[in-house]
């Protein structure tokens, strides 16, 4: 029966499929020509420095690497990076999920205003956000003044500089990134699948747990990987909102390259970052493909 049903399109479709493939191949090479300037830029700006970094990192030798692994500056920053990135990923994905759900399910007005807010947050440069958080969280900032005026606290809370300010700013920075992969899965959910579950006796909670959540999970995974990758690259926010103890791996790279002028150690740390990010990016692309 299945064979019968596929005979029609297969027979008639084959030659046109082949023609399309040929056209696509020709198109691909044609496109490459247009890409040449970009490729040149990438070769000069990314591949070359990356190659130099790798070479420098290997100049460090076994002893140098061993030293690095016992260097508390490196291990501390590595630990910070893992802990902060994990925490931020969990919090940001949860926030992004609820925001995406609100946009997805909201009425026209809620949808438009929330989307606008997300896009504004997305497009605002990180420096502006840092200034804003500074004004909000410093000892004589808006939050502390308000809480003291209300009598909730006696002295100011030391939120800035420090981890609280840093984490809040980083979460705020990554949430918009996490919304898009989740939302793109949500909007493609078939309303009828949920209706089918409802008609079979599922309460709203059961519809969510048994249908919506499993079907949006690919988007959640993609968002989590994306956020984690962004977190491992944070440099400006820790540098401006954190204390020296709160610094992440990218800040260690900058420290060695710019202040201690030890390019071999800087390269080694950078390489660790590049490898981690590379693996996560491959995973992200897989996950992202699964959302389509």
């Amino acid at each position, binding site marked *: *029966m*299945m064979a*019968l*049903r596929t005979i029609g399109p297969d027979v008639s479709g084959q030659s046109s499929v082949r023609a399309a493939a040929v056209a696509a191949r020709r198109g691909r090479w044609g496109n490459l020509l247009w890409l040449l300037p970009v490729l040149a830029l990438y070769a000069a700006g990314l591949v070359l420095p990356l190659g130099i970094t790798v070479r420098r990192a290997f100049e460090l030798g076994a002893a140098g690497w061993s030293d690095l692994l016992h260097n508390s500056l490196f291990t501390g920053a590595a630990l910070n990076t893992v802990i902060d990135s994990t925490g931020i990923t969990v919090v940001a994905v949860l926030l992004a999920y609820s925001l995406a759900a609100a946009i997805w399910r909201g009425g026209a007005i809620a949808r438009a205003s929330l989307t606008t807010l997300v896009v504004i947050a997305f497009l605002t440069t990180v420096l502006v956000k840092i200034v804003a958080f500074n004004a909000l969280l410093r000892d004589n900032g808006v939050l502390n003044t308000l809480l003291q005026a209300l009598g909730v606290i006696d002295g100011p809370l030391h939120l800035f500089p420090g981890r609280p300010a840093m984490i809040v700013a980083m979460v705020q920075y990554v949430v918009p990134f996490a919304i898009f992969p989740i939302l793109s899965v949500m909007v493609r959910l*078939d309303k*009828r*699948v949920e*209706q*089918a*579950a*409802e*008609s*079979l*006796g*599922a*309460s709203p909670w*059961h519809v969510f747990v*048994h*249908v919506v959540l*499993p*079907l949006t999970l690919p988007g959640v995974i993609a968002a989590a990987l994306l956020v984690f990758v962004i977190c491992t690259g944070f440099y400006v926010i820790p540098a401006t909102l954190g204390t020296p103890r709160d610094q992440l791996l990218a800040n260690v790279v900058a420290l060695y390259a710019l202040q201690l002028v030890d390019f071999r150690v800087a390269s080694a740390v950078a390489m660790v970052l590049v490898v981690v990010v590379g693996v996560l990016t491959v995973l992200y692309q897989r996950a992202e493909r699964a959302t389509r």
Partner: protein
Amino acid sequence: MTVDDSKVTSAARATGAADGARDINVTGLGKRYGAAHALHDVNFTLRDGEFLTLLGPSGSGKTTTLGIIAGFVDPDYGDVQVGARSIIGMPPRRRNLGIVFQSYALFPHLSVAANVEFGLRMRKVPAAERERRGKRMLERVGLADFAQRTPAQLSGGQQQRVALARALVINPTALLLDEPLGALDRRLRQQVEIELKGIQRETGVSVLHVTHDQEEAMIMSDRMAVMNAGRIEQIDTPTNVYKYPSTRFVANFLGEANLLDVNVRENDGARAIVNYADGSSGAVHVSSAHGTGGSGSQGTVCVRPERMHFASDDEVAENAVCGTFVSCLYLGASLRCIVQALGQELIVTCSDHAAFTSPEPGALVRLAWDAADGQLLANES
């Protein structure tokens, strides 16, 4: 004949069964989207055990009606009752109705078995019983060997049967089907029509079925409701809807129809005497229970092409008109002839038998039909 008889008995069994406690009564249903009326005073009863089809063109309000009964759409006015209890405002999960969509809407992340058992899981049926009932239902639809696959690994027809099994396993008060065969190709469709009807007979479940395919409606239904622009124009057995259409729309939508403008001379509600456009008079049946004009009014008479025949000049007929033969198409089992008469083209079909010889184009012919085969239709409102 046999088909008719079996329909009558199943309908009789249905109504006798539970004195209406499981009937679904739809009264005065209306729904507006902005300024557009999607539904207009829709009334019908889905009797227990009955296979009722909502038939109508795209946009006539079939899905909206189904959605209101299922609880996905709130009506603006009107009521839906199961037995004597209104279910308006009740969430879909408490209505105990099995629903099959055209897109099937299976749970893509669950196995076939888990799909079918979903409703039982929501009802907290113990695992062992759940599995047993799920398995039995899969056997019934012939998919026992596919239990561990996911929906994506099934053909369209198989997915359709999983959706049916999933809806049936909860012992629903009624099964609501929204064009469940729409995505299947023609050959498979005819097979599934028969299977579906068989399963319905076996289980005795009431079915409200939505389609815009008249053949499908004729084959499967005990009764059908023909919908047009948010209203039900006629509701009756397929035979009666075809034989005794009550409006122009129904006559045209179901099969072919010759629609003749007439002057009504006498109308006693069952039989009418009319004058055709050429002045000749005839007797016809009054098929609509209401809305036909009395004497002196304008009206429309519907005559099915297969109910008209070529008559000799001396044949005595209750209705006869003269015309010019235009053309004739040979369709294998039948002939489809076109005759110019009463200022319009009339279609006459006759079965292909040796006695019939096609007249020459341009020849004068006489068409005749019995009073029982002409239907005076309701006036358009």
